[in-house]
């Protein structure tokens, strides 16, 4: 009998700590599949930020460095400069990248560091219990925006993929979603392309993934998937915001 579906080689069989329904697991699997297909498992190094993403090293059988909160792009910068033959990727949540780490992500992107960053946007701080993040939607209730996010006080949700696309050093900036088979397939292609950008020395690549946090959103996993379609995508449109096709920057 032929196996038609199996665990990617680049994914361990460790049970994840993610809540049932969380789409971090899907993102992990897609990254592992891309590493398998590109044959980079042996030279990939993962740098998780702080939060639910921190245990990346349990799930990928690769070298890993635990970065301080928000600093993964700076760690990745030092690492990639030190070993250009390795494939270096950071994996950050929205508190990590879009709040405390804005300086590091913007300047790594602007320098055109040849690294790949995966960005999980689930509109809240997950691990600490669902506090308001810079990506929290207007009106969204969280433990620290109990009356709903109000732009007059908390400003607007930050659009990282669009913002980074404005920087010359960026080779690839895209936003995908993880709530349906069709979108998961698109996400997979984007993840693969992001790695390929790095392998072809094109510069900085970033994939923003709209993800669920059904636990902190206080909804069922299925309802959370619907909320991505209904509430997140209208504000955070999917698409490719920058894609370099040649080394035209040289």
């Amino acid at each position, binding site marked *: 009998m032929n196996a038609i579906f199996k665990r990617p080689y680049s994914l361990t069989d460790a049970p994840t700590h993610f809540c049932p329904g969380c789409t971090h697991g899907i993102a992990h699997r897609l990254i592992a599949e891309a590493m398998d297909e590109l044959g980079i*498992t*042996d*030279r*990939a*190094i993962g*740098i998780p930020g702080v939060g639910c993403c*921190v245990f990346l*090293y349990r799930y*990928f*059988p*690769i*070298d*890993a*460095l*635990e*970065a*301080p909160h928000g*600093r993964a792009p*700076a*760690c*990745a*910068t*030092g*690492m*990639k*400069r*030190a*070993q250009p*033959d*390795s*494939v270096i990727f950071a994996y950050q949540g929205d508190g990590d990248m879009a709040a405390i780490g804005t*300086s*590091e992500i*913007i*300047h790594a992107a602007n*320098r055109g560091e040849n690294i790949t960053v995966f960005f999980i946007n689930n509109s809240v701080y997950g691990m600490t219990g669902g506090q308001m993040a810079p990506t929290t939607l207007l009106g969204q209730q969280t433990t620290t925006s109990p009356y709903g996010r109000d732009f007059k006080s908390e400003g607007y949700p930050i659009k990282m993929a669009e913002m980074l696309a404005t920087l010359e050093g960026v080779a690839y900036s895209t936003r995908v979603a993880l709530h349906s088979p069709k979108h998961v397939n698109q996400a997979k292609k984007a993840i693969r392309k992001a790695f390929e950008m790095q392998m072809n020395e094109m510069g900085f690549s970033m994939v923003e993934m709209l993800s669920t946090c059904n636990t902190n959103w206080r909804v069922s996993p299925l309802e959370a998937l619907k909320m991505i379609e209904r509430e997140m995508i209208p504000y955070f449109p999917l698409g490719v915001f920058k894609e370099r096709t040649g080394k035209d920057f040289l």
Partner: protein
Amino acid sequence: MTEKKLTKGNIALAEGAIQAGCRFYFGYPITPQNDIPEYLARNLPKHGGTFIPAESEIASINMVMGAAASGKRAMTSSSGPGISLMQEGISYLAGSEMPAVIVNIMRCGPGLGGIAPTQGDYNQAVHGGGHGDYRNIVLAPGSVQEMFDLTIKAFELADRYRNPAMIIADAMIGQFQEPCRLTPEKPVEFPEKPWALTGRRGREPRLLKSLYLGDYEQEEHNLFLKQKYDEIQEKEVMVEMQHLDDAELVIIAFGTPARVAKTAIAMAREEGLKVGLIRPITLFPFPSQQILEHSRRVGKVLVVEMNTGQMVRDVRIAAHKDAEISFYGRPGGGFPFPDDVLAEIKKALGGGAR
């Protein structure tokens, strides 16, 4: 004899880093240490090295972390406020056991502070600075030659113990010029790094981390680090001692105040006052044993610092219980001149001394 060249302290340090095999420097401008990044921006590329003018000191220390995790010798330098911003990263380096060299050419604090010579950051460097139960290896050069030699030493110690090593110097040591031998005294040591992240490439995956959530895992890790610090304390103390045999008073000082003390000691000895010197070269590990022995025998101790009294607390802990300890401090860019120190010597020796 090896040729000596008139060299500025900061330049000697930067050249020492290159000679130590450091090929990765990341930094952000701040006075009075700008000669270091400027020298390395010019010279690292000639050695195939990487210089990145980072967007902040926070980014600098984390870039250092990335290069250090890769098994490469990496350094950053800064001053006062910049070093404060790096403390998070330094704590991670210590917790994850990564070697790196951090240079602090101190400025006066608190806050933005002035740029005159000062030693206000002793506590920050020696007693942690960042969060958690850890120690930095701390070296305190007292001359331009030591800016060169101790930088090489800092890289060797950092690698040997997989721990951040900090060099702290006042702006005087950083900015003045002295003749300096710009080649290593002995071949530079390069320990193996079987922990470095290089992509697993056929071996088992490696991990550098500082998060321990299992029962007692963190305690075990902290106790392991403590053992390492004890070993450093036991093996790596560096100290200069002068004129202690007949001394009736010992001055304890590091950096520029130790140089001033030497002049004051010579003046005192001309007047028949028997004064000696203990100059800690490593601030951690601290020369506690030497201080205990000599303070017991000599009985009187004068600590001179360019702050309001930071190292003096460690001296009080180390010294013999019967030792009389006095302190002379000039903070915030105030400067202890030899005459001032001589007056303190006379005060400490009291009327009875000849």
